[in-house]
């Protein structure tokens, strides 16, 4: 399979010269099983360019099928959806998968994204055939020979991590999540940041430990782990309630799960390319200090990685440091 990054940024798109190398588009990753239809994870602004390239394939004549796995519906993970060209061509089929709380249907959430007065084209006017599939953590299902599994993350409201297994390889997408030290899950709004390191009630501590163990299990032996590393350690201390991790948190999960490559992802909007280079080098140093066997790379727009036994090659190109 090929894994290609179309948007690697968190929170909000950030155009400008200081993000040219890593890219300023919000989250979107394409997983392309060998000879198969694209499985797209998240629909940040990066999905616009992906959609344009798909129109050069069978999506252009309305005979394409795309699967979109949504980690959660915060803006930076869905704001590219209305600009995904295949949706505007009759005949294309698009399957959208996400978790949703009991009080609203997934389709209603997406419909409200583009209803009047927010966007000129409502969901009902799109020409492609769109199906919404609501998931629950622990679900295990197949998309054209690719096995998809998922677990819950520690982020305000909802977020899911996905594992895709196909072509004898595996990739895990884990964005957005805080470390498992304070419970953010299901919270609609967190007025007062939790006190970092304060003791937790036993039931909460147990719930967090279970959530973390499920994530480690999902990541077990993955060839590639894409992980939310929006924060530095100092930034996390200031904003523990925002639901994002540091490279140290990602390295700890990657070590326990025995992954082969860790990919830093969901870069902070105001992180310049040079600052991101430094974060990557520091993360590699940390991993070496811990004697980790895996590589650490940082996602950049346009990075493409080939995994699996179809050609026997590991990460392609110059993975990790944006050109």
């Amino acid at each position: 399979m090929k894994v290609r990054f179309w948007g690697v940024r968190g929170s909000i798109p950030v155009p400008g010269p200081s993000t040219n190398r890593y890219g300023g588009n919000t989250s979107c990753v394409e997983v392309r099983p060998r000879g198969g239809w694209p499985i797209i994870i998240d629909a940040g602004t990066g999905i616009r360019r992906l959609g344009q390239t798909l129109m050069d394939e069978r999506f252009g004549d309305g005979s394409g099928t795309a699967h979109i796995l949504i980690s959660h519906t915060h803006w930076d993970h869905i704001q590219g959806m209305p600009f995904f060209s295949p949706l505007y061509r009759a005949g294309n089929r698009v399957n959208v998968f996400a978790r949703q709380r009991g009080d609203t249907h997934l389709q209603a959430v997406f419909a409200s994204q583009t209803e009047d007065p927010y966007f000129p084209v409502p969901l009902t006017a799109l020409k492609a055939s769109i199906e919404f599939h609501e998931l629950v953590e622990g679900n295990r299902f197949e998309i054209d020979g690719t096995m998809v599994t998922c677990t819950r993350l520690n982020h305000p409201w909802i977020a899911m991590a996905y594992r895709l297994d196909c072509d004898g390889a595996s990739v895990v997408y884990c964005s957005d999540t805080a470390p498992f030290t304070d419970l953010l899950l299901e919270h609609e709004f967190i007025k007062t940041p939790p006190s970092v390191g304060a003791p937790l009630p036993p039931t909460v501590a147990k719930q967090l430990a279970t959530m973390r163990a499920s994530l480690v299990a999902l990541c077990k032996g993955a060839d590639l782990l894409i992980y939310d590393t929006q924060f530095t350690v100092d930034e996390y201390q200031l904003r523990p309630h925002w639901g994002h991790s540091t490279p140290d948190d990602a390295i700890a999960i990657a070590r326990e799960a025995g992954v082969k490559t860790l990919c830093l992802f969901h870069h902070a909007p105001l992180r310049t390319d040079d600052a991101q280079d430094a974060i990557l080098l520091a993360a590699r140093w940390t991993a070496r200090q811990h004697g980790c066997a895996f590589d650490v790379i940082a996602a950049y727009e346009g990075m493409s990685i080939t995994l699996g036994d179809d050609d026997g090659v590991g990460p392609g190109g110059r993975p990790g440091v944006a050109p």
Partner: protein
Amino acid sequence: MKLRFWGVRGSIPAPGPDTNRYGGNTSCVSVTTARGELVILDMGTGLMHLGNHLLTTPFGKGQGQATILLSHAHWDHIQGLGFFAPVFIPGNRFVLRGHGRSSSMLEGILEGQMNPNFSPLYTLKNLGAAFDVRAVVPGVPFTVADGVQVTARPNPHGTTTALAFRLEEAGRSFVYASDAGYPAEGPSPEMLELYRGADALLHDTTYTPADQADRQARGFSSYEQAADAAIAAGARRLIAFHYDQDYTDADVDALTVGCRAYLDGHGGAAIELVAAAEGNQLEI
């Protein structure tokens, strides 16, 4: 009045090396009045960068106040609000004026983007700053920022409308007319009156004439329609704005050259043309 462009792009932010010169952020323009008051036009992603800039001013200490004029509530004109640092600082005060059948409906629209399905902010009321949201009455002048007179009128914009604003201070006038999709006969007489004699007319120039002809239903102007409006209204200066997300810097250069040639060939040779670019400033 001093203008500064924080976002000049239409529809969706367009990051990448191809948009470095004009910028890829969505619509946001600041106007600093002669008395140093701040008026903000639209809240695209450019608003985040304006906000970070304001942190070194009284806004950083919760002592700032500004008027926000909102043309309409399409995403590219409101998506910067949750990332505008001054709104998280208690003490700052914002008066927001925009289109709505009522003030509470306008506030409800802004609340919609904070809905927990989409944002961890949950509600405008969780922002530290105070918001006073008021719907404007088209054609009825009001005063903002200690002495700037504003008149708003709606332009057709695809399936909806977008307000254009005329700001007047000490005999100088600036018109903000983004997202305008005119019928074949062009702007209405009321709109031309709003634009009349403007020292600067900032106008939607999303498309080249060929692209506009292909996408009329989207409700945007070509540079020719913008130039026609500037000529008909006798504007002194035309500011090109709201470029299509797929236009590279070279495309916008070509659009500007085309617009200049069109002005020169249609009685607008005296009109100064400025292509809005992120970070640029302009004195009126």
